[in-house]
């Protein structure tokens, strides 16, 4: 175990393991105070009381979508991560025969600063790129580039589905970039899988492009390349291990870490983050747009896709590009977007899997009026993902809760024992 930004991580960097058998988050029963706060943040019920004392556990990996919302909301720091690649990455960065490349997600750059004293929401993209370079990453590629590519693929797929809807590719189309949602729909609504976009997530795309297109452009043998996915997320560790993520002929994603682990690596290396000059990513697989960065928030993928779909369907320019009606903080948000020469595009955005389930039930019943549905597991989207730095108030306000809980725990232990 290693403590990383106030969260415990197991030193476990699986290779070729079946991700379905891994506990990506689990409860340390010695630290659990049986308060049950985690229950409130678990959409599937995977985390539950396992004895009369009320101690929680993730009962089986099959039921857990790995979102990590329980972990970031636990007032006692009792939940740990089961997979950590930090040591392996540090070793690869020192190895002269390995070309290590970075692939940070959009949402990382809006929370990484918190670990260095910036207020939440501060954009630190330039410093993040500079820090990655300093850590020894050879190529600073950026997942935002493939967020733009995702829009091209997923937007085109949507337009194809709208113009030729069929049994194999029905409407509505669901987004496919959130790994918590993907495991959820595969596990609980498999009958709806034809509705899900066939597009890989942006990181799935970047992993595959890195070892093909990226290898070609930089003249790097793909066998020497080591790709590091840097995410605001825990579930992306599961996605990186999916057996099918090997379309480059190699493992597309060699390691997945989250924002907390990147902050830890920067601190371990003694980098003065606050005084770093801003740096840009390497353009070929790094240049990105505003449409890409909004992937990190609920409603963002929808808005980015509409910025493309509007122009393709109407053959007119969308100016200004804001589609504010789809911006979603919580719950379900639906909107009708008028597109000239086409008509109305009906869309819905769900934040949280309990809300996603409502939209899924509608589709299952054949009553869904939408063309396109965006699902994000975490409230407000990836910026509030399970891999982000902790909200200090979750642990600091717990003096009172701590007292109550320890009284409760002691009492319950006695009566249960």
């Amino acid at each position, binding site marked *: 175990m290693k403590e990383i930004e106030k969260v415990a991580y197991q030193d476990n960097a699986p290779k070729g393991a079946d991700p379905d058998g891994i506990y990506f988050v689990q409860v340390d029963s010695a630290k659990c105070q049986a308060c049950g706060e985690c229950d409130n943040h678990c959409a599937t019920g995977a985390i539950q009381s396992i004895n009369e004392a009320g101690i929680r556990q993730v009962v089986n990996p099959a039921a857990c979508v790995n979102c990590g919302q329980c972990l970031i909301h636990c007032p006692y720091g009792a939940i740990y991560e089961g997979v950590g690649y930090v040591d392996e990455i540090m070793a690869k960065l020192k190895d002269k025969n390995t070309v290590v490349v970075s692939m940070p997600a959009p949402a990382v750059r809006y929370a990484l600063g918190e670990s260095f004293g910036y207020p939440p929401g501060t954009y630190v993209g330039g410093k993040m790129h500079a820090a990655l370079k300093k850590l020894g990453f050879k190529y600073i590629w950026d997942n935002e580039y493939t967020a733009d590519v995702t829009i091209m693929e997923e937007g*085109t797929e949507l337009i194809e589905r709208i113009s030729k809807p069929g049994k194999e590719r029905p409407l509505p189309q669901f987004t496919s970039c959130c790994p918590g949602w993907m495991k959820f729909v595969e596990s*609980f609504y498999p009958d709806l899988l034809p509705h899900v976009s066939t597009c890989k997530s942006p990181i799935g795309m970047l992993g595959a492009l890195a070892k093909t297109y990226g290898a070609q452009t930089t003249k790097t043998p793909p066998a020497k390349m080591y790709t590091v996915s840097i995410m605001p997320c825990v579930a992306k560790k599961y996605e990186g291990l999916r057996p099918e993520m090997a379309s480059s002929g190699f493992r597309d994603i060699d390691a997945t870490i989250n924002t907390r682990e990147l902050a830890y690596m920067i601190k371990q290396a003694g980098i003065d983050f606050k005084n770093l000059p801003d740096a840009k990513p390497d353009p070929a697989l790094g240049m990105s747009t*505003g449409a890409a960065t909004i992937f990190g928030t609920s409603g963002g993928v929808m808005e980015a896709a509409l910025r493309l779909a509007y122009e393709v369907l109407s053959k007119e320019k969308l100016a200004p590009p804001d589609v504010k009606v789809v911006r979603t903080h919580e719950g379900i948000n639906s909107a009708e977007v008028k597109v000239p020469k086409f008509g109305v595009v009906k869309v819905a955005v769900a934040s949280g899997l309990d809300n996603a389930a409502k939209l899924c039930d509608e589709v299952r019943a054949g009553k869904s009026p939408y063309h396109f549905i965006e699902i994000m597991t975490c409230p407000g989207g990836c910026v509030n993902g399970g891999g982000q730095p902790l909200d200090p108030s979750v642990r600091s306000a717990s003096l009172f809760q701590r007292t109550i809980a320890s009284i409760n725990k002691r009492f319950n232990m006695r009566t249960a024992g």
Partner: protein
Amino acid sequence: MKNVVQMTRRSFIKATAIAAGYAVLGFNLTREAVAAGLDFLTARQKGVYDADANKKVYPIRKSQDNPMVQKIYDKKHGFLHDGPCGHKSHELLHTHYQDRSSAVKALKEKGVKLKV
């Protein structure tokens, strides 16, 4: 939760402890904690939209206008020259999914209660 009307010794002590806690520390502490949590979540989302609207951070705001996106899809020399959803895209950028419901079903048959 088992029985609301008839209070057990255990739940009585629990309720007393919570009441005492509130009496000592007050409601404001908890209320403030909840409010701080909400601000925290929205601040990050606001940061994203501010950057999208800031020309110095993102001079281009549509994916199709990204020069490196145009380059990869270039009809003559692009790596994905057959365009979005073309042959090469399907090979590298699209995927298939797996029905994982049997594992969940097996759990439920063992008596594990889930929310979905």
